[in-house]
């Protein structure tokens, strides 16, 4: 039976690829998309979510606008990674659809509470909306089916500070709220995403199909690949977010450990650092499943096949 999924996202290049993968995957029903600040402003992430869904002929999926600022810290956008509009060199037409009225966090509360145990949340941006929803309606913790989070770097270095991954660094306080909430969580940290590189060869394989989908992937990832080359000496690009989504229906891509995971909110140099207490001397209850091992090509083949299928359908 397909899973009911809500994606909270800040598109963002890899976020957009996650939206495309969602649209191309019969294993899931995408019930809604909530936009959050992050890679670019919420105004822009909302617009990008609408445009990408239209590109994928999935404009029936409702899009809601969420928080425009982190809870406590100052805003931190990342135009150098995703481009000023958030989609690299891709230029999508202005969306024809509008975001739905109401706040994203209220949509999340309403969906989870009206269908207890049925809604899976995939959170691939800063966790502000989720944290706000938990504090406003604590019962969503018991009633959400599962939460898949892209964020953190456990034994891997950070991509935003030496130690911290972008999503958890942008709103560490929100991550702290979510990590300690008691929701059933699966974390996809940089430890696994940085092993899955989308290469130029992968892109060329997709470009054999002439479609607005493949053109979008090429235009967006070209910018992303330039960033990875310039800042991280990686040939290709890391596509964190679609991988997180893929785990909702193909968990065998990764190997998991149950761990006690926390995030540093002490405002020192470790701010935003996610860390696991591997020895757990205090015998704390393990609060999440963490993907610590991955079969990179298993994910990449899935992603490429789904994008090929979507591209063939939309030409």
């Amino acid at each position, binding site marked *: 039976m397909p899973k009911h999924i809500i994606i909270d996202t800040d598109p963002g290049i890899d976020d957009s690829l996650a939206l495309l993968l969602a649209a191309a995957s019969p294993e899931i029903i995408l019930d809604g998309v909530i936009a959050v600040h992050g890679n670019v402003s919420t105004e822009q992430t909302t617009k990008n979510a609408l445009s990408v869904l239209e590109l994928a002929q999935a404009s029936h999926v409702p899009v809601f606008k969420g*928080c*425009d*600022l982190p*809870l*406590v810290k100052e805003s931190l956008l990342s135009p150098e990674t995703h481009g000023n509009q958030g989609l690299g060199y891709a230029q999508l037409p202005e969306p024809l659809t509008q975001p739905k009225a109401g*706040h994203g*966090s*209220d949509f999340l509360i309403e969906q989870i509470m009206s269908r207890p145990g049925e809604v899976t949340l995939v959170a691939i941006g800063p966790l*502000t909306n989720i*944290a*706000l929803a938990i*504090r*406003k*309606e*604590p019962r969503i913790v018991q009633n959400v089916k599962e939460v898949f989070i892209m964020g953190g770097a456990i034994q891997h270095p950070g991509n935003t500070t030496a130690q911290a991954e972008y999503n958890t660094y942008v709103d560490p*306080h929100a991550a*702290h*709220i979510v990590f300690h909430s008691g929701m059933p969580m699966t974390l996809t940290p940089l430890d696994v995403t940085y092993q899955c590189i989308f290469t130029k060869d992968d892109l060329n394989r997709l470009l054999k199909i002439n479609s607005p989908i493949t053109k979008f992937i090429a235009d967006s990832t070209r910018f992303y690949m330039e960033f990875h080359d310039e800042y991280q000496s990686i040939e290709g690009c890391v596509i964190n977010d679609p991988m997180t989504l893929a785990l909702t229906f193909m968990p065998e891509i990764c190997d998991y450990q149950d761990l006690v995971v926390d995030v540093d*909110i*002490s*405002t*020192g140099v470790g701010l935003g650092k996610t860390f696991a207490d591997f020895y757990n001397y205090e015998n704390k209850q393990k609060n999440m499943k963490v993907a610590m091992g991955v079969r990179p090509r298993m994910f990449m083949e899935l992603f490429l096949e789904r994008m090929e299928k979507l591209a063939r359908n939309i030409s």
Partner: protein
Amino acid sequence: MPTTRIILDTDPGADDALAILLMLASPEIQLEALTTVQGNVNLEKTTRNALALLEFLNARNIPVAKGCSTPLIKPPHGTQGEEVHGKSGLGQAVLPEPKNKPIETHAVDYLIERFLAEPGELTLFAIGPLTNVALAIRKEPKFARSVKELVIMGGAIRSGGNVSPLAEFNIHEDPHAAHIVFNSGIPITLIPLDATYKCLLTSADVERLNKIDSPIARLVHDVTADYMEFYLKYEGFNGCALHDPLTVAAVIAPELLTLEKHYVNVDISGGVSTGKTYADFMKVAKQPANMQVALGVKGREFVELFVERMERLSRSRL
């Protein structure tokens, strides 16, 4: 003078109850709604107390919206507050179970709804942890500029703390919320311990009030009796500080307050000074002032004013 229209965010709480009494006893004020938050006692109790107080005071037309049950990030303090405010939160006072229920709308949404409906018209008083106010600010970016003024009971600038050596209870309970509120751009008046500890209601004051045979006078006695015990035991004086009621002075007797404009922030570093409010007196941070702070008060004059208003309210309800 036009009346000041107020929405009160509160965690009753013995001194919260006295602040509500003082607002209802003050013709300068029109109290339009209460929003509740966890703090002195848990959210179920603060909400119950808010409803029970309003019914007892014949003010059940004032709506109550229920808010957040935990601080944003810190775990709630547990039941220590019951040591100060009694198990129910209202000391020895036993009020009938309220017949009214809180309205359906969450306090955060209610605040957003009311302030956006009349931008610049309503004054917000926040006399508990600032969780609801912070969430309203983050959820609706237009909220901050819709608030005419925000009067907060909280913080200790030069004064010591009352919950850690450096920190005051309301701010310490949710320092992250305070950080959001202080840096929101809302025009703030802060009433810290520096001023409230100069306003001591003594047992002689309560005896004087109780020469009037009124349920109001008895309520003031019942709410403050254990509170005074606590002050005697821990702070060595026979009376209690009128923390929350002193906020009302910002409207009814601002001349009693010594107000200074400063840049004030709160420590959220996780170190020993977590929850400490500090003013940048020497302007080293080069930040514009974000609030006016009551660093002093004519304490006895305020207590007299409080007792007089309570006497007047008591006489109207024998």
